[in-house]
């Protein structure tokens, strides 16, 4: 008899995910096609995608998430490279510093950004003080503010993921590349970067999905500027339109899924390690 007992190990996890995730998500998505318990109906989707207000919010959400992801990667990559090459002791210190911000809640962090980038905040005071600008900059309650908040939120995650991947690159590979004539830049672009692709993809997915679905940060820093998650909340809680909220949730799930798939495909293309 074959040994089926090992499947018992994953049973609790599977059960939990099925009952509390797959079923509700499935029901939510299915319900969006049956607004009045009548026959299936997709007109709601169709009209939504003709609604310029919704399209603008969808586009803003995507833009904010993509820009946040790119900024996190661009800042996080060199930082992680630096940290990964430190001595064990220094590395521990720097990693603790990196995850330190994760210990404060997103609410607290968003409020502190309000103090910093608000009309009379630190940034504007400083810039006007040294005379670079005359009028205060409108940063707070714009997509830029949301991006700043999200980068702050997700940069630690990016760095930790990338440090993990970089540490797994044998240092002999770098020495080997150098001994074969590669310059510092060559070692980086030909060896380090390609071997970091898996880390970049995982980090990218984490940041993108996190930003795409984040609620607190855009709610506090975005002001009137809605993103999908705040729009969803508004529909459900303020307008009590649960049907529309479900449709938005379904759209968010699908977009997330598409993006993850695309990034995985891209990663496989860039990373021929087998």
């Amino acid at each position, binding site marked *: 008899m074959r040994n089926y007992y090992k499947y018992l190990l994953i049973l609790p996890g599977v059960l939990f995910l099925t009952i509390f995730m797959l079923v509700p998500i499935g029901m939510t998505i299915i319900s969006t096609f049956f607004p009045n318990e009548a026959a299936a109906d997709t007109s709601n989707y169709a009209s939504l995608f003709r609604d310029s207000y919704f399209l603008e919010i969808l586009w803003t959400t995507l833009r904010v998430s993509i820009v946040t992801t790119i900024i996190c990667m661009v800042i996080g990559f060199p930082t992680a490279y630096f940290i990964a090459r430190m001595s064990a002791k220094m590395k521990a210190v720097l990693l603790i510093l990196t995850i330190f911000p994760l210990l404060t809640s997103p609410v607290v962090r968003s409020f502190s950004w309000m103090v910093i980038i608000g009309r009379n905040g630190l940034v504007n005071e400083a810039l006007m003080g040294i005379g670079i600008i005359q009028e205060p900059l409108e940063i707070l309650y714009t997509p830029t503010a949301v991006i700043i908040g999200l980068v702050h939120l997700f940069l630690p995650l990016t760095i930790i993921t990338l440090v993990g991947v970089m540490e797994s690159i*044998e240092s*002999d*590979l770098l*020495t*080997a*590349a*150098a*001994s*074969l*004539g*590669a*310059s510092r830049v*060559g070692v980086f672009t*030909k*060896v380090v970067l*390609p*071997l970091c692709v898996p880390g970049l993809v995982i980090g990218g997915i984490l940041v993108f999905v996190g930003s795409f679905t984040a609620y607190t940060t855009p709610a506090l820093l975005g002001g009137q500027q809605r993103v999908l998650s705040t729009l969803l909340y508004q529909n459900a809680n303020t307008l009590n339109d649960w049907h529309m909220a479900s449709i938005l949730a379904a759209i968010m799930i699908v977009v997330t899924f598409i993006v993850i798939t695309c990034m995985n495909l891209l990663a496989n293309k860039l*990373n*021929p*390690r*087998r």
Partner: protein
Amino acid sequence: MSLFTLQDVTVAYQKQAILQDFNLSIGEGELVSLLGPSGCGKTTTLRLIAGFLQSKEGKFLFREKDYTKVPVNKRNFGFVFQNYALFPHMTVFDNVAFGLRQRKVSKASIKDRVLRVLDIVSLRGFEERFPAALSGGQKQRVAIARALVIEPDLLLFDEPLSNLDANLRVNMRVEIRRIQQELGITTVYVSHDQEECFSISDKVAIMNKGIIEQLSDPATIYRQPKTKFVADFIGFKNFIQFDRRRQESDGIAATVQGITLTVQQQDNAGGLVGAIRPDDLRLYPLDAAPMTVENAVQGKVLISTYLGRSYQYEVQTSIGQFTVNDDAGAAPLANGQDVVLEIPKKQIVLVD
């Protein structure tokens, strides 16, 4: 003429000096091995030559030019790592071509040279494989090909065969020697396998705690170790600490505790320690010893051990304890038996 010279080099990790006033000089076209116990500084020496490490003091001269400060990527030395260090994201072809691409060699010429070197290491047809799909021996050969293809001025091996099984090790070392001689590339080879070093090297450097105790051709090291450490390392298990020595007409008379042994004249002066291998000693029962025993010393068998091809005896004498390997053919000697130990004068080596 020597190709490169390390002059009074000092290397330290943190405060601890690993190499101190280290000197080494290697001739063009030679294969020189560094051999020594774990931690004696072999890898350190090799990494220093490659430029992976900087010396605190001293000079590295290559073809009479000062190379001390020349960076790794400008040295044109091939390095073969113990764990191969193949690029996992590149095919065999791209791994081997890496060095040539850095040198901006034309595409056609790259293809030509890569295929030629893959021929040399018998890996033609493996161009499109990734390292993960190669056996240990094949990875090893890719690593060698990658180092060879740049036509290095110097080839450096750090225990390249230590991850392979015994059979493959013998095959690969023959391969390495063949390729090295065919292309005439000067090579420094690190290993702690004595047989491996002796079989492929023009010269062997025996290292101990960051110092080269002896640098000679394998046969000389085998027959004429210079120091007690070297003698011990290559299997001279028995040592006699003499009190004094005197030059005689038929050799050297060395004395310990009133017993004088004759030692055959040897090339290098040597010191006051006599060294001899267990295989070179002979044992006779006290009552059956022939008349013509050289350097006879009386003793008693302490322990006898059966080794298959021979018996190994621990023998206590007035000038110390000896380990003797004796033919299993003769009737074995019993524990506690009184014996005569013969120390053939040709086999004793006087070392420092």
